[in-house]
């Protein structure tokens, strides 16, 4: 199921759309759009959309977005507003967590 995310002005209006997968875990689950299953959902977003744009569009508290991965690779906080997602990538976000 594909969900078209309302970007609320947080992404460029390029006209082109890409599909990405969003995964939210632990206490962030509750911010997943309707239709999400098993912590993930496919999203249609404007080309050029960044992790920060998706975080803002979903009203995710920034302080709870501690671990942000694109295809498993960590995206540093200073790059979350500039690293544009590309077609097919997986954006995964966790709150502050630990274990062992």
């Amino acid at each position: 199921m594909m969900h078209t995310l309302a970007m609320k002005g947080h992404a460029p209006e390029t006209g082109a759309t890409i599909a990405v997968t969003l995964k939210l875990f632990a206490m962030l689950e509750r911010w997943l759009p309707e239709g999400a299953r098993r912590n993930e959902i496919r999203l249609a977003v404007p080309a050029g959309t960044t992790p920060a744009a998706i975080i803002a569009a979903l009203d995710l508290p920034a302080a709870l977005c501690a671990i942000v991965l694109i295809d498993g690779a960590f995206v540093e906080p200073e790059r979350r507003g500039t690293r544009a997602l590309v077609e097919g990538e997986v954006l995964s976000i966790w709150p502050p967590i630990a274990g062992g």
Partner: protein
Amino acid sequence: MSWQRKILRVDLTAGTIAEEPLNMEWALDYLGSRGLGTKYFVEEVGAGVDPLSPANKLIFATGPLTGTMASTGGRYTVITKGALTGAIACSNSGGYWGAELKAAGWDMVIFEGKSPKPVYLQISDDEVTLHDAAEIWGTTVWHTEEHLKKKHQDPLMRVTSVGRSAEQGCLYAAVVNDLHRAAGRSGVGTVMASKNLKAIAVRGTKGVAGIKDPKAFMAATKAAKKVLADNAVTGQGLPAYGTQVLMNVINEMGALPTRNHKDVQFEGARDISAEAMAEKRETDGKANLVTNQACFGCTIACGRISQMDKGHYTVQNQPQYWGASGGLEYEAAWALGAANGVDDLEALTYANFLANEDGFDPISFGATVGAVMELYEMGVLTKEQIGIEAPFGSAKALTFLAELTAKGEGFGKEMGLGSKRLTEKYGHPELSMSVKGQEFPAYDSRGIQGMGLTYATSNRGACHLRSYTVASEVLGIPIKTDPLATEGKAGLVKAFQDATAIFDSAGICLFTSFAWSLVDVAPQLQASCEGDWSLDNLAVVGERIWNMERMFNNAAGFTSKDDCLPKRLVTEPAKTGPAKGLVNGLDKMLPEYYAARGWTQDGIPTPETKGRLGL
């Protein structure tokens, strides 16, 4: 002073019990628990001792903060020469037993020799008695605890014991207290059973007296508890999701060892994660997770309490497993699940129940199952030998092997050898994912490079709890480092190893370190104990403990050649994820680590290093 200044010495051969003053000179240099217990051990036991001989000793040691109002102050450590590894073993447990021993007035108990018949030790404050254990020998940990509480008519008694796996010689048997808290690693339970010692039952009513500055201690512990409560990890994440919250993040970043480390990502990870434990099952509408649980004095409460689906094939005819009990933590869920390609959460929970009930380490067990499944798929082991078809992904093989290992029956005897000896026996030692004979925990060192150095240099064999660089490399605690880089990891590992030795030796839980640094621990020690517990001295004490352990291992015959990783991790690149194409760069990190430690390039502490540390 926080120390009770008294230890018990139990000669199991002679059946005698003696009281001794705590060596305070050593306490000021080695703090307590892991550090101080190990100091006693290395002073009293030759490094060449056979772990299962009467000449080996077994020490149960608390720390100065154990039993106090410091958060998580309930820990104790079991120190011996490990049955699985032949290296120094110090296995740490929470629950309530450690605090009870301290409240009975004892800092530690040293067991020597071997009893001619099965016995258990009962401690009621100053009254200490060895009892015949014939009626509980051959029974489980769960039965032993229930039996002793009934027999002594004391429901508040705290019991630590070994199960049938230890009695049957499983080399990774654990010591289990409070039903599901365990000193789990390195086969400390095997050593206990080899001495014909079944259990230690304790009731303490004295509390911990003699805090050096009670007012300052109350202020320090209160401030430190606020740090834990205000921290998102220790105040919210761990209580809600437990350590199991790691399953998905470690999988996403391509560092979840899967199918005996053949892969680094598991397609079934989400099905065995914290998120899955909290979901209602389709079968009965109930969640696997019932609640969280805290150990003594803990203000985090990360423990998991689970209840199985009564209709699951494993328990449908075994109502004794229908109640709520200790659930899956991350390491167990990984070892029983991803390590074998098994994604049946209920089967994992059942195997975990058995590990608690009969006292065996689910990490070493699960990793040994992974090696067996690989040998089965290669055709080296057959259904006839194992007793069941055992391809990767078979939940039925997993639970079958757990049942056999618990009792030491059939192929369970082979399972009890651990992966190193088992794979050697069947001609494929390269398939044992272990260091110094102990199996890896749940982080693939191709995707988290620092953990390769952590495993290779751990004094008790492969272990994540000696320098948990995952905190930095994945979680950004205290600072984020690149998990794929080898640069800087030597210093990072050394810093984590030395600091961890302090947390362990103080008698508190390592999980406080997700919020606390030694800056938070030092005031609690300084207010409770005589001596110098400044940050500068704590750094020296931590390093001293690490080097003391290393020197014992060197004397036991371990060399730099044992600071290694299995061939698979340094020659077979990760197939998927961010680490795709990478192997572990141990060869780059190890020389830097030796230099940072002040060791020769053969891994031996130099005379200057020993002199600086007072060793």
